[in-house]
């Protein structure tokens, strides 16, 4: 989208920030980039490309994260308008706060497949980006992932965050995978550790049998778990690949080119990423992939983080997820689908991005002209609603209970005797409240501060505080205590009133604490169907969870549209829609009773 936005107008000074580098999968729509640019900075290449057809504009590009400290309020004050084409909620919230603090209008946007929207946010005049809750990516209870998966996505998360991480990632990271076997005897050694010079095939098969066989048998021992659930089947190599048990999956069968990126699929001659492999083939892929990691990419082992563009990693995770799925009676998926789930890939096409970009520029022009009565939120629909494929709606007034732009106090239910400060900061302050570098005060006592420039003893003190439970902090936090939380960079300050509670429901309240007093976020499903409505956490391809937040958005539009259907178009009384007799063909959704609470701009 950003590619499209930049070119048309002769803005005298524009600046773009992007931390990403260019990937092949971007090229189907990010048309300022070419194949030769793969690996280079998006910001810089985009700037160069634009200057080719508008040589006289002034563009500065930053290959940086917009959350960096250099982009502070003073920085944002330089601009007349900010246009966002971000791909994750975190960054959007951050920019929203900076724009509010700097009092600069913000034009937000997002696309997914054929859907998209553009919204305008002006402090004091319209809702800010956070006035309406944005769904956060769904997270799964640990036990679902480790013991009782029921959907393919659970298997993917297991394969990616547990198995892959355990084998190839940072060894010092906490990991819930059971690594001990009955055979390791008294030494309780780690099954995943490969003995010096241990045969790769033997190692691979040992891992396989451990995670898909032994660990399942172990889980089956707990009768309670399976009382009302389908019991999983342990899978051993000898069952999945009977003839190949002792045969080497050796290089003599290798079809791959030495020079190319190592790939289990290519090695095995599987050409179609859309094909769903059976258990035997998935097993072959798994063993082969594991082998290839050790043979060709040994140096990376111990540091690897799953990357959806890492073919071998995707193959490994697909195979592992499928074998696990097979155990649990969950349908298997193709590599293409698995990659979409594992990589939280958001589908994207050039056309929708072009439309939304055009709409963004139109709003930006209105902002620059100070035409605030004409600001619109515009929705690009796949199916027309009342003949409209592009539906403009007037912005709402700010939400009076928005803690970001209206300073309402929040309420946190938490067990002050058992919860550490660190948990509150991670789960609530940084995660839910989206603060980057928070500061936590209790009355006049500063109990935590984040950021550079801290004195050693200060930092040490804060580190200590992190590990203390709330009730034992230098200024004790108990029922009724009020926390003041600030992010200096975002110029955001909140109060959180603490309510002590002993018990929390493990399934419904997995965080062990509940924040309220703001419009509660809607949890959104990560589906296992690659093609269907997409996913939670972001993809680098500039597409937001926003529009996939169909629950939130659709509900609002539906409410509005539903009530409109009930009115005869030719009715003259209390017209819900401003009639098209006016030159100003505006759809005004004013009088809808459900929206009566929220007042319209003007």
């Amino acid at each position: 989208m950003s590619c499209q936005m930049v070119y048309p107008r002769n803005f005298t000074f524009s600046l773009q920030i992007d931390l990403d580098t260019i990937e092949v999968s971007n090229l189907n729509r990010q048309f300022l980039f070419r194949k030769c640019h793969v690996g280079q900075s998006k910001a810089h290449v985009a700037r160069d490309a634009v200057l080719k057809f508008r040589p006289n504009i002034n563009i500065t590009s930053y290959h940086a994260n917009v959350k960096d400290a250099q982009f502070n309020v003073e920085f944002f004050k330089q601009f007349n308008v900010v246009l966002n084409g971000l791909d994750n909620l975190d960054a959007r919230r951050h920019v929203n706060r900076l724009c509010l603090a700097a009092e600069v209008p913000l034009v937000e946007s997002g696309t997914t497949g054929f859907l998209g929207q553009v919204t305008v946010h002006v402090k004091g005049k319209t809702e800010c980006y956070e006035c309406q809750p944005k769904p956060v990516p769904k997270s799964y209870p640990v036990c679902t992932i480790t013991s009782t998966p029921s959907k393919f996505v659970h298997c993917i998360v297991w394969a990616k965050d547990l198995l892959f991480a355990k084998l190839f990632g940072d060894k010092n990271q906490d990991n819930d995978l059971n690594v001990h076997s009955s055979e390791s005897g008294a030494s309780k050694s780690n099954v995943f550790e490969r003995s010096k010079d241990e045969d790769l095939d033997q190692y691979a098969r040992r891992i396989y049998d451990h995670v898909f066989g032994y660990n399942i048998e172990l889980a089956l021992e707990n009768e309670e778990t399976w009382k009302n659930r389908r019991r999983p089947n342990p899978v051993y190599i000898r069952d999945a690949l009977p003839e190949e048990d002792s045969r080497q999956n050796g290089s003599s069968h290798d079809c791959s080119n030495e020079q190319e990126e190592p790939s289990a699929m290519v090695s095995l001659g599987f050409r179609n990423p859309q094909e769903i492999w059976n258990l035997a083939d998935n097993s072959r892929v798994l063993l082969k992939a594991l082998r290839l990691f050790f043979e060709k990419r040994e140096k990376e082992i111990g540091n690897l983080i799953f990357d959806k563009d890492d073919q071998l990693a995707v193959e490994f995770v697909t195979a592992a997820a499928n074998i696990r799925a097979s155990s649990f009676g969950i349908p298997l998926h193709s590599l293409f689908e698995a990659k979409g789930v594992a990589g939280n890939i958001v589908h994207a096409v050039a056309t929708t991005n072009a439309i939304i970009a055009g709409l963004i520029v139109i709003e930006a022009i209105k902002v620059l002209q100070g035409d605030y009565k004409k600001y619109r939120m515009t929705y690009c629909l796949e199916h027309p609603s009342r003949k409209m494929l592009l539906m403009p709606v007037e912005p709402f007034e700010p939400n009076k209970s928005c803690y970001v732009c209206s300073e309402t106090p929040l309420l946190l239910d938490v067990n002050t005797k058992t919860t550490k400060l660190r948990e509150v900061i991670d789960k609530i302050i940084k995660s839910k409240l989206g603060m980057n570098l928070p500061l936590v005060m209790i009355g006049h006592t500063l109990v935590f501060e984040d950021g550079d420039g801290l004195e050693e003893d200060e930092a040490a003190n804060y580190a200590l505080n992190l590990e203390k439970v709330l009730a034992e902090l230098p200024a004790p936090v108990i029922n009724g205590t009020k926390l003041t939380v600030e992010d200096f960079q975002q110029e955001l300050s909140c109060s959180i009133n603490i309510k002590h509670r002993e018990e929390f429901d493990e399934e419904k309240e997995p965080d062990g604490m509940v924040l309220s007093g703001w419009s509660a976020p809607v949890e959104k499903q990560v589906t296992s169907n690659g093609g269907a409505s997409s996913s939670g956490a972001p993809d680098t391809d500039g597409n937001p969870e926003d529009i996939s937040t169909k629950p939130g958005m659709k509900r609002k539009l539906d409410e509005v549209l539903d009530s409109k259907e009930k009115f005869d178009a030719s009715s003259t009384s209390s017209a819900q829609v401003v009639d098209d007799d006016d030159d100003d063909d505006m759809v005004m959704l004013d009088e809808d009773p459900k929206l009566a609470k929220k007042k319209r701009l003007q």
Partner: protein
Amino acid sequence: MGGGVPEELLTAQETALYDRQIRVWGVDAQKRLSKAHVLVCGVNGATIELCKNIVLAGVGSLSLMDDHVVTEDDLNANFLIPPDESIYSSRSRAEVCCESLKDFNPMVRVSVEKGDPSLIDGEFLDKFDIIVLSRTSMKTKLFVNDNCRKSSKHIAFYAIECKGSCGEIFVDLQKHSYVQKNAGEPEPKELSYHSLQEAISVPWKNLPRKTAKLYFAMRVLENYESSQGHGACEISLSDLPAVLALRKNMCYEMSLNESQIPTALLERLVAAGKKEHPPVCAILGGILGQEVIKSISGKGDPIKNFFYFDDTDGKGVMEDIPGPSTN
């Protein structure tokens, strides 16, 4: 469209490049795209947006027809023309844009067709699956549309115009069979389209009161342009009085209240002349791009049969304009 699709796989290159869009419309649709041949007559801000979109999407081939020599005015809304006289001087719009477009996707064959759309017929037309016309006279549009319909091959016809901040797209898919996803289940559907002639001949009084004003406004302008012997889009503000007079006559003939075609709207359209507002081009080119893809792939509800956009109200509306007979 283009016959049966054989079961070959996409190449590794295609899979990598098209990954994100395959997740939208599927492998089958992608294969069909790669076999489609598109002709675009009239290279301007809106059509180059369309071209950019379908080239990125991976159509089989794209042919551009526009012998007009590039002028500085073209640079306003056509980003495919490098702002360098040494590059574009004395060359046709089609030629210069063809060169730029090739860069966008090496897997698409982009070429120039010299000639005049008013002479397109028969065999030449049959080379294509999709024809798009822009900035040609109504007479030419009718001629080409008619030839598309006469062909034994199924050829989809589109017309697109961007005047200032307004735009119109016309779609004629004749008989179009496609698949719609209904609650996850594929449902076969069929639509019957009116020809362009039929779509502009419907008596205005038969149309619903809420019909997009742009529909009428564009008809008035078309009428004016052909009566004056003007090429498309060569009118200017000085023509406004005459255009308003024509509106009066046409409304009288068609029993339509003049207020249905606001003066302010006509004024804006006339004043725009040849100018196209770039973001509006992006929107129109995006919408049309999607339509072309839907038609080739046979997936998704296509627009039937007009689309309008006006950045004054920001609405993008579909109008289903019937033919002249009253039912």
